[in-house]
């Protein structure tokens, strides 16, 4: 039972981590980036290239990955968002899906279809606590998710740039009128969103292997988590992520593993019907 709960929480922390990247972009431009999973996959392959192909030390691999993901986030914004700003939101969403497919196929062409393992800074080290097996890498994921949540919250609430992001998100024109450099703010939000996805890729690849299709399922789960937590709400996403991980583990453990994925999406539909603002979201009225 405790092992099941621990495994569920570990998976939940991963969902939450991916959702944090999704929300970074959403909180700036109110657009759901459906390529967030594919950005995570690119981060995983950056880790693979750095550690396995170029034999870099782990700290350098992480540093290079963050830098490359920031650039990719900027390019992503220029391709998927910038040309369509001001157009109906669904066009941007469709473009993010298209860019995600392009990223997936590019990685397939460059690295091939075979899954490949990415080393963890902790190897396969673990602690045995009675019957429980606690992987050090999983604890690292918990710690990183918690740290990123705090940093992101502090950034949004306590920095000038964070307030500019919030202002841009609430009313782009008004923000521009009061002197916010909107394009620069949006660009930084995309760069940070991609960097968070890169962090997710570096952290999950040692557990799951890197493969070109790894992002789609994880990206969808991050979307589910964001809806359940209340879109835009950081701590809501983390709590919803942990909750979803736990529920999935318990469903697989005590009902049937066949229903594990189905249950997550039934939960999504149920929230959309009953409480579309999510657990911690507030009801919003449409701007006229």
């Amino acid at each position, binding site marked *: 039972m405790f092992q099941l709960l621990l495994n569920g929480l570990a998976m939940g922390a991963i969902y939450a981590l991916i959702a944090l990247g999704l929300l970074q972009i959403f909180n700036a431009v109110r657009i759901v980036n459906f390529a967030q999973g594919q950005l995570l996959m690119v981060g995983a392959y950056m880790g693979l290239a750095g550690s396995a192909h170029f034999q870099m030390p782990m700290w350098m691999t992480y540093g290079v990955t963050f830098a490359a993901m920031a650039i990719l986030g900027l390019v992503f914004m220029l391709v998927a968002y910038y040309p369509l700003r001001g157009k109906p939101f669904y066009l941007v969403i469709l473009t993010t899906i298209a860019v995600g497919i392009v990223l997936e196929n590019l990685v397939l062409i460059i690295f091939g*279809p075979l899954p490949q393992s990415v080393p963890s800074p902790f190897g396969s080290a673990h602690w045995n606590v009675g019957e429980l097996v606690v992987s050090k890498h999983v604890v690292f994921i918990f710690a990183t998710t918690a740290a990123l949540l705090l940093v992101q919250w502090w950034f949004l609430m306590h920095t000038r740039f964070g307030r500019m992001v919030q202002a841009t998100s609430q009313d782009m024109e008004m923000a521009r009128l009061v002197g916010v450099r909107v394009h620069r703010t949006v660009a930084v939000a995309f760069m940070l969103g991609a960097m968070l996805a890169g962090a997710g890729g570096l952290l999950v690849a040692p557990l799951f292997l890197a493969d070109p299709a790894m992002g789609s399922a994880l990206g969808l789960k991050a979307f589910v988590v964001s809806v359940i937590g209340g879109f835009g709400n950081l701590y809501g996403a983390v709590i919803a992520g942990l909750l979803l991980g736990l529920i999935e583990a318990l469903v697989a453990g005590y009902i049937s593993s066949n229903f594990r994925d189905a249950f997550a999406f039934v939960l999504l539909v149920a929230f959309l019907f009953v409480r579309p603002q999510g657990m911690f979201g507030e009801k919003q009225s449409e701007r006229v």
Partner: protein
Amino acid sequence: MHVLPLRFLIGAAAACAAATGAYAQGAASCPNPIPIALTTPLTSGVALLGIQAKLGVEHAIGEINAAGGVGGKTFKLSIEDATGSGPNALNSMNRLMEGKPVVLFSSMISPHIFTQNDAIKNGETPVLVAGTNAQLMKQGNPWLIRMHVHDGQLADAVPRYIVETLKKSKPAILVVADDYGLGASKGLQAAFDKLGVKPVAVESYGLNDKDMTAQLTKIKTSGADIILLWGRPGDVAIVLKQRKALGIELPVIGNPSTVAATTVANLTPEESDGAYGIGGMLPQVGTNQKALAFAKDVLERTKVPPDNFGVGYRDAMYMVKDVIEKVGCDRAKIRDSLRALKDWQGLMISYSADKEGELAHTMGIYRNKGKVTEQIGVIKAGSN
């Protein structure tokens, strides 16, 4: 000096002329180049399987053309990406049929082949496949021929091996939740039932799932004495990793994915050690020098280690070449010859057609010793 009798020389020359004439006669009905087609997933989550068909057929065609082709005519291969979806697999087959290939290869993804079934019938072109669903050849499609062992054969062989050879009586079944895994799970449970053994756990995971720890934890507490694992190399590697991470020391046996080079490459020696696999033949393993050379050459050219499917498609292309040499490019004659094949020797096994168009009946038994995979036996379908 030893002088050959004149009569012998004349006889040998006549035999050579007759043989060449026969080949030329076979190939005379063929266009030049001879069109061959292949539809297989080269993108999507099943691309790591689909790529095996491409590298197997391409390797064989490369060798055959370099050796002069058939009667001086070379093969030309057209390839379409079936992606991971049935409709795309069907569309790709329809597009390839428009090019009038003399033989078409489809993939190892059974749902794709079920979708393509009518197009195959209407196209009246022999189609060689490696889809492993046992029901695939029971559709009564005379143009369909399978060159790989199927789940029905494995579902019979693996439980018998577990019970009779490994002496285990509490198996836990863990499969990927798609047509491949769930179909196998039913067959495995039925076979265990015949042996008087009831699995202590029957679990599955989604095709794109990355976390199988809940299922493994359940198996750990079920009292199982062996895990029977059925999946693709990518997800099987994750299961073996997570098994070790959870401290589960139960032996694992499964389809060839548990011992495939693509799986073992992603595991540590501890994660890989002790896993058994039963299924199509793996070219990297054993002492067959031709198979080892094939595996080495493909890996060098494509950076992808060939597996049981790669060998199957390579053999199937050579079969096609031999048949065309004999009967030419009439599609019905090619089909009939392939369906009448007896004891045709491939790279690692001998192929004989049965009345349903099944060509392969031999499986290898493999075991990982650390990261090294060893062949520990061979099973003929229907016998252990």
